[in-house]
């Protein structure tokens, strides 16, 4: 397992790598723009319209159906802030339980994450919103754990059972994401992304970590990989 410093270094290295990809894509598009300058309106100077998208992550419905130990739901709202930058807010909740011979406990959590998404390609025409994106998020979650029952199996001295009282705590993380958004129908978008997250206060999760933290994943690990598959509806001036 990576140490905390190595994990953070790896995280920021990945962040820098992803962000450094942007100029390459931008340059590639610069060339494309020059060759078709006569056909593309000057959209750089246009006023940035407030276009909003609201969506739900349907992959979480699927996993909630498949997984017996947690139920979760996530949604996202984003708004265009600059020509190539969107501001996004994601939120959701999860209800997870861990039931083994040795431990039984349940957790609930709600999360909010905020951060920018940067598009990788220039718009091909006014109103073009389909794009590939990379982004960063700061996520925070409030976790409630109910009383936990434990059993220590001991055939020699006898089994021991006990209870750890309920508690609630706050945890937060940073993440990088990358993905695509396609407009499958006018104002209806579908898109996926993958996410790499690093927990900032893993110490809080050392004892009885949630089986699943909405917005983060397994609470036992200092880093996590995740994904979303959003279906979104857009409105506002394009």
């Amino acid at each position, binding site marked *: 397992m990576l140490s905390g410093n190595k994990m953070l270094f790896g995280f920021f290295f990945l962040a820098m790598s992803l962000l450094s990809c942007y100029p390459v894509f931008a340059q590639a598009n610069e060339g494309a723009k020059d060759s078709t300058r006569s056909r593309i309106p000057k959209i750089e100077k246009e006023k940035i319209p407030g276009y909003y998208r609201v969506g739900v992550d349907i*992959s979480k419905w*699927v*996993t909630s159906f*498949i*997984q017996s*130990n*947690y139920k979760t739901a996530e949604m996202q709202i984003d708004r265009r802030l600059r020509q190539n930058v969107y501001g996004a807010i994601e939120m959701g909740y999860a209800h997870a339980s*861990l039931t*083994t011979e*040795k*431990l039984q406990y349940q957790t609930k959590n709600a999360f909010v994450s905020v951060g920018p998404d940067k598009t990788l390609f220039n718009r091909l025409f006014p109103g073009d919103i389909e794009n590939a994106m990379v982004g960063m998020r700061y996520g925070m979650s409030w976790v409630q754990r109910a009383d936990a029952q*434990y*059993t*220590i199996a*001991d055939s*020699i*001295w*006898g089994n*021991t059972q*006990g209870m750890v009282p309920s508690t609630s705590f706050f945890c937060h993380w940073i993440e990088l994401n990358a993905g695509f958004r396609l407009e499958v129908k006018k104002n209806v978008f579908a898109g996926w992304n993958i996410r790499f997250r690093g927990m900032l206060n893993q110490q809080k999760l*050392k*004892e*009885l*970590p949630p*089986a*699943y933290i909405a917005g983060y*994943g*397994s609470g*036992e690990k200092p880093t996590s*990989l*995740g994904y979303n598959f959003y279906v979104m509806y857009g409105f506002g001036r394009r």
Partner: protein
Amino acid sequence: MSLSFFSSCTQQSYCLDVLLPELRSYYSTLDANGKWVDTTLQNPSIRFGANGNYLTSIQNSHGFAIPIPQGQNSFTIYFRTDSASALVDTLQIVCEPYRQFISKSCGYRYYATLQSCTFTHHQLDSVLVVHPSVNADITLKHLQFVIRK
């Protein structure tokens, strides 16, 4: 295949730490100068467990290791320097247990801090608490049994 993708990130892990923390001891005697000398016993035996119904007997051993009870403040073990002997020493060990979370798969363990050890003197000269902390460290020996000659 897509279902396995959705569920692949939450595979259940297994507990690889199956051992309970152990109390370890070593045998010694007093030499002519009154110094402790590590010794080997030919045929010792230790009885322990909830009803004293577990017996361990390791021939030509320098000491023994037994699991400690989980969450109990005291426990009793019965020691014989020679399994063939009728003389049995009874040791009452008092400790302060504390709970330690291992992992989601393994759950909790109780470690303990040894407080005192009272014992009968049939074959034992003394029993010393050398390292009071009984925990996951398997290199520590906690008790020194000084055997009468």
